[in-house]
Structure formats: structure tokens, C-alpha cells
């Protein structure tokens, strides 16, 4: 027994149950508390327009967090998601001349290629996920700037405007897209062999190999999925802002996405994927930002709060002693 482990062991069973409870349901409680606080103290918070805005703003983080949840479920991490957003955004702007559908497909394809590179490095070459994706975090942003020739490009396209701003029965299209993604990922996790393989690999990679799980192929698919979802987020963000700015789009979004996943109860040690928790985690992060801003605290405060929350969530998971 390592000393660190030993030091954690004496925790009374009831205390561990408390941490269990926080990991399982803490995110929903946090969300409820924030909602109540804002409804009480933030002017105009309960208005439909504001609620709609919160949902629209959370979409990129939520979509990326869903992919990240799969990656973290396999005991991995993907730091390159922000750069993938930038690449898909730059590609979208560049290929808009061929029509919006082609441009969107090229953007998604760009994401898929980054995902393949990540996946091959991690699953076949055997580089640690944090290192492989860190390389693409740096290199990918550079590539995006090269594609966009370092410029911000304004994007005027009617189709993209509809995607970015229109609503169906009052629900913004981007929110519907995110919901569709969530349903697909949830079904994949709960009802397919792929989903079972993801948690098996995260739970015990060596045992998964022995059990005949196609570990490499599954990892490759996971990283490709994560990158494609990040590319989708990049396209949505570009459509909503009517501009492609590869030096800023998706900056630090990996932090928000990872936080959303971990706060949502998916252990960083893998072996488990919680979809609803991840969505709630993303919303929690969104509301924290909104709350601080509406009470005149700067963006820098949001970042520090985010950092504290991720530390707290990981701490609680560790106290819990395994999934």
C-alpha cells in the first residue's frame, strides 16, 4: 500500500458515502443552487431571452464535453479540442466558396483528420494521451492560423446564418443540434458494444486486451469522435458569430470541457461515462460564468473559479477511492 493510499484508507465509511453522494449528484445540486440564486438576485435572469441565451452559449462546450466524456471514459484526455475548433472554423471560411454544405463537410473532415492523428499516436504508437494531444493543441492552432493566413474572416452565408441564429418552435437550432448529439452519444454509451468497450478499456486496459476487446480500434474511434464533435462546435461557433477568428475561437475550451465532464461525475481514472452529468456540468460552468459577469466580476474571475471547481471535483473523486 502506498502511503498516499494508506493515508486515504482510514476515512470512515460514512464520509466516503458523503463523497460518493457528491460525485453522483453534486452537479445537479450545484446547478439548482445557482438557478435559485440567480432567479432571486440577478435581474431579468428568468426572462425567456436570457434562458435561451444561456442554452445557446453552452452549446460548444456541451458538444465538446460529450466527446471528452468518451475520451476520459477510456482513461485518456484530449487537449487539442480548442485547436480543432479553430481548424474547422478556418476551413469553413476558406471553402465557403463551394457552398455551405461542402464547407461544413470539409470542416468536419479536418476535425476527423486531427482525430486520426491523435488516435494513431495514442492507440498504435503508444504515446500518452496528454502528450499527443498537447502537441496538437499547439500545432493545431498554428495550422489553423496558416489556413486562415492569420486573419479574421467575416462569414456571410444565409445557410450558416439560419444554423447559427434561427429557432424551431422557439428552440434555437444549435441547441437542437447539441441535443441530437447528446442522444446519439448516450445511446452509443448505453446500448452498443462500442460503449461497453469504452468503459472496459477505461476500467482496466490490460484486462480488456485479454478479454478480446479491440482496444486500439476503439481508442482510435473515440479520438476521432471527440475531434469531429470539436469540429462541429467550431462550425456552430463560427455560424453564430458570423466570423472565423482562428486565433481566438476555442481558446481554453478544453479546460471547460474537462471540468464539465469531471464535475458531472465521470472519473478521470476512466471506466465510466456519465452523459447527463456531463451536460449538467457544462451548464453549471456556463451559469457560473454568467452569474459572475452579471454581477460585474471580470472574465478572469470566471477562470479562477473554474480552476477551483475542477480541483474540488477531482479531490472529491479521489477521496471516494475509485469508481
Amino acid at each position, binding site marked *: 500500500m502506498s502511503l498516499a493510499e494508506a493515508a486515504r484508507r482510514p476515512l470512515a465509511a460514512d464520509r466516503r458515502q458523503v463523497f460518493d453522494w457528491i460525485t453522483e449528484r453534486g452537479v445537479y445540486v450545484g446547478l439548482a443552487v445557482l438557478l435559485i440564486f440567480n432567479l432571486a438576485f440577478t435581474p431579468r435572469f428568468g426572462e425567456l431571452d436570457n434562458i435561451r441565451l444561456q442554452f445557446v452559449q453552452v452549446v460548444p462546450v456541451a458538444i465538446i464535453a460529450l466527446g471528452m466524456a468518451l475520451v476520459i471514459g477510456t482513461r485518456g484526455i484530449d487537449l487539442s479540442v480548442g485547436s480543432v475548433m479553430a481548424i474547422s472554423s478556418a476551413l469553413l471560411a476558406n471553402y465557403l466558396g463551394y457552398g455551405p454544405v461542402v464547407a461544413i463537410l470539409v470542416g468536419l473532415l479536418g476535425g476527423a483528420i486531427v482525430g486520426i492523428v491523435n488516435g494513431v499516436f495514442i492507440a498504435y504508437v503508444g504515446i500518452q494521451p496528454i502528450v499527443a494531444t498537447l502537441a496538437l493543441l499547439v500545432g493545431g492552432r498554428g495550422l489553423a492560423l496558416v489556413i486562415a493566413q492569420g486573419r479574421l474572416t467575416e462569414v456571410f452565408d444565409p445557410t450558416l446564418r439560419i444554423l447559427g441564429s434561427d429557432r424551431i418552435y422557439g428552440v434555437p437550432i444549435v441547441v437542437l443540434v447539441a441535443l441530437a448529439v447528446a442522444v446519439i452519444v448516450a445511446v452509443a454509451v448505453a446500448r452498443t*458494444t462500442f460503449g461497453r468497450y469504452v468503459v472496459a478499456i477505461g476500467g482496466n486496459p490490460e484486462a480488456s486486451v485479454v478479454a478480446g476487446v479491440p482496444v486500439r480500434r476503439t481508442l482510435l474511434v473515440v479520438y476521432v469522435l471527440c475531434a469531429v464533435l470539436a469540429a462541429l462546435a467550431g462550425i456552430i461557433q463560427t455560424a453564430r458569430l458570423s466570423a472565423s477568428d482562428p486565433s481566438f475561437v476555442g481558446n481554453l475550451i478544453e479546460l471547460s470541457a474537462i471540468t464539465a465532464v469531471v464535475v458531472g461525475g465521470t472519473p478521470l481514472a476512466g471506466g465510466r461515462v456519465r452523459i447527463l452529468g456531463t451536460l449538467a456540468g457544462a451548464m453549471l460552468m456556463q451559469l457560473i460564468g454568467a452569474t459572475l459577469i452579471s454581477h460585474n466580476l471580470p472574465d478572469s474571475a470566471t477562470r479562477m473559479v473554474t480552476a477551483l471547481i475542477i480541483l474540488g471535483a477531482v479531490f472529491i473523486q479521489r477521496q471516494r477511492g*475509485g469508481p
Partner: protein
Amino acid sequence: MQAGPVYCNDVLVRGSVEPHPATPTTPVLEVEDVTKRFAGVLALDHVSLQLQQGEVHALVGENGAGKSTLIKVLTGVYQPDEGRIRYQGEQISFARPLDAQLAGISTIYQEINLVPLLSVARNLFLGHEPTNRFGLVDERRMNREAKAILAGYGIHVDVRRPLRSLGTGVQQMVAIARAVAADHRVVIMDEPTSSLEPREVERLVDVVRRLRRDGVAVVYVSHRLEEVFRLCDRVSVLRDGRLVHTSLVADITRLELVSRMLGRAVADVARARTRFADQQHEFGDQPVLRATGLTRRHVLSDVSLEVRPGEVMGLGGLLGSGRTETVKAIYGIQPVDDGAVEVAGSQIATGSPRAALAAGIALIPQDRKSEGIIPSLSVRDNIVLAALPAMSRAGFLSDRDQDAVVARLIEQLRIKASSPDQKVGELSGGNQQKVLLARLLALNPRVLLLDDPTRGIDVGATAEIQALISKLAGEGLGIVLISSELEEVVEGADRITVLRDGAVVGTLAGEEISEEAVMTVIAAAARESMRAADDAENPARDGSTNVAG
């Protein structure tokens, strides 16, 4: 053994038992009426135990009997809910394991807890390295002293090598050397021999005897009853969290001891013990598994074996003889330089567990925890994991198919879980192993490779698993069986292929099979290889050319 008066009343035995005549003194360590609950479950139920100076005290019981909990209470990992612990006459409570260590109680755990990448010497001195006058680690002195300490245990290795480059047995000895190096009054050994080979067990026996001579009290937890009878002075039996028996080892027979552990009548135990060997298997004609010329530099050399349907093929040999590597090579997770594997006459790709599985070969790996179970997943998910492709349509799973298979296997193997949704990590070792067996059986395999399937499992589950192996062979499966207990291979196998240094050195069948015969084959091979080594040094002396290194 019984010198002087012995106060034996089946519950508490006071006084030292051993030749060196300590007068009945205060026990070194005394547990009084200790109770420990986990979430309402009684893990220890008013347990009292006394540990005398200079005695080796065996602690036995099935898995889940409370042995581990008791040890953890003794070493400060858990706090007792009720009761007292007295150490050298004074009531104490250890807030954390370090306190117990500092007080002089050291524990050697079943799993090795060392740093694999550091050198042997570093591991030995971890936390109390000798330093020079600049406060830096004095490598030379450390290496010299480490070498001397290990030599005392009969281990001669380069202490500068990283620990992980050594075999598990040697690593275990390093752990033991580390634990008893310091000045300790009580040493607790939790299954210390589970990864040792016979030669190393002998060294451990010497170490334990030396500790006893020095007046150290040893708590010896083991599933191996031979060791209890050979090495221990007293034995305490735990069952369902209660202390059901304490006596001198000399005052109890093996059969009685097993029956106390199981809480069953002696006659039942005797029957359960012979069942494994009773059954006569009928073999098919054509081998269901044929491995030819499996070779891997420094690991395996030209290993070939055949298993017929209905046959249990035992792999004999010492730890490190290449048994595990052989089954891993057949299964495709041990890379080979050369060799072929055939299932029912058709060759399969080597180096791919998926190909092996598709051909009907399934493996229970030696290390259940690291290569077997997925602790975070449920019993159900663990059982169906390997069979998922067969239970899905276009990648989508059918609950009905899964539940049917899982329910059948849980019942067939008598897996004790609160529900199929319980996490496997929460089950006892025996039930985890049954879950792994269920995973293999869900595949309807033709060949089972079982690498030490009863390792670290309680007596009851062992008997069940052995009976199951026999039954599966009866149903026509080909089985390759490895066991760290020679007795188990001898009882269970129809044929035994004996390995040494990664090569086949003999085969025994039918009436030839006995523990003695296997050891004779190994010993003969050892003599031969020594002669071969001599010849290699003096090649001019005779004309023999075919000399293995």
C-alpha cells in the same frame, strides 16, 4: 514441539510454545473483543486474539472471513468500532499505518508494494537511505549493504538493476527483506508465499524461523495448509468475522482445520477434496489444440504441446519455467518469434487474442486483478464482455440475450453477488474468479487455458472451481491447467507437460503422474542443463554440439 505445560482450552492459549522457554508473559500484541462494521455488515464480531513473543501464529479462514480486516485493524488502517488493542501491555490506537510501523509492527502485503523502476537497493532502503556527509545518498554504501542483506536471504542479484527486471518471487523476497530489516517486534505476513517458488519458500521458512528465534511475533496468513503445519506454532481460525478456533497447531489435524474453516462436517470436506481427481475423462482422437515450436528468445524455446477434447493437460514446472508464457503465447498476448497454433486442425494467427478467441481459445490470466476483471464494471458487464459481438446486432446490444446468458452462468457457477449489477471489484477473490470463468464460458469455447485459477482463493471456492474444471473436461473441452500448487496439477491433470527454462523437459501421463515424478523430471533436467553448461565451457573435451545456453 510441546515443551512444558501447555494451557490449551480451544479458545485462548496462554504461554509460549516454542523450545526457547519464555515464561508466560504479557502478550506482545493483544486484541480484545474487537468489532468492526462496514455499512452495517459485521466484518469482525467480538474477536479476541493474543500474540506471544517468539511465536508464529497462523491466521486462516476463507475469503471474506475477516482476516484482512483484522490485519488492517492491527496495523492502523482501520479503527475498531468496539474493543481494545494492547501492544506490549499498553492500550494503543494507531491512527494510521505509519504509526504502527514506527511502533514496530510491520506488514508484508500480498501484493508487492515497491517501486518497480527504482533499483533493488533503492527499494530496500526506501525512506531510510544511507547518506554521506553532504546529505546525498551514499550509493556505494547502500549497494554494498543491500547486497549483504539480500545475500542473507540467499539472493544474489545485481542490486543496481531496476526491481521490475527481476522475477516476482525475488521481488517478494526484497519486500520481505525490506519489512524485516528494521527493528520490529511484530511482523504480519499476508500470504507471503503466493508468488514464491519452492526454493524461495524454503528461504522464507528460514527467515520466519530466524525471526522467531529473535523473539519476534509473526502473524502468518496463508491459504496453504502445509505451511501452517510446517511453520506455525498456533493457529487461529476466523469464519464470518468470528474467531471460531485457536489452538496449538500440533493439536489439530488438517482435516479438522479445513472443517473449522468451512464450518462443515469433516466427512464433507474429505469428499470435496477427492472429487477433483475422481472423474475419468474420455478423450477425443484428434487434438483440439496443437501448439508447435513456440519460440521466443530468452523466454520460450521450441515449446510444443497437444490437448485432446476432454483432456486436462497440466503444465508442470517451477515459477519462471515458462508455463505462463506458454499459455500467453498460445492465446496471442505473448509475442513469439516462431511457432504455430492450431485449433482443431486449422492454424490461427499468433499474436492476436482476438484470433484466438474467434477460434475458441479462452484464457484465465494468472493475475486476476491486473489482467482479468474490470473492477468498475458490473458482474453482468464483466461476464458478457468477451461475448459482446455475438450478443449484438450491428453493434447494438440486446438486453434479453445478455440477461439470459448472465443469469444462467451466475446460477451454474454459483456466483455470490447481491445482483448482476454489483460491481465486480466488490466481490471476493473466489467470486471474481468465477466471474472470469463465466466470461469464458459465455463464449462457448473449445479450449480453456487456466493459469492458476485457484490462486489466492478460499478452500470452498477452490473445490468448486476444481470440480467445474473436471466437469468442463467431461463435456469435451480441451483444458490447459497451470497451478502454483503442484498438488492441484497432479490431482487435476490427465497428462502433464513439464517445463523448465522455457523448454519442455518431459511429459507424464496417467499412472505416471505424481508430485514426486514431476519433481524428478525437473531435477533431472536441472542436472542435464548443468552438465550442458559445463560442456559449453569446455567444448573441446567432447564432441557434443547441440548445447543450449
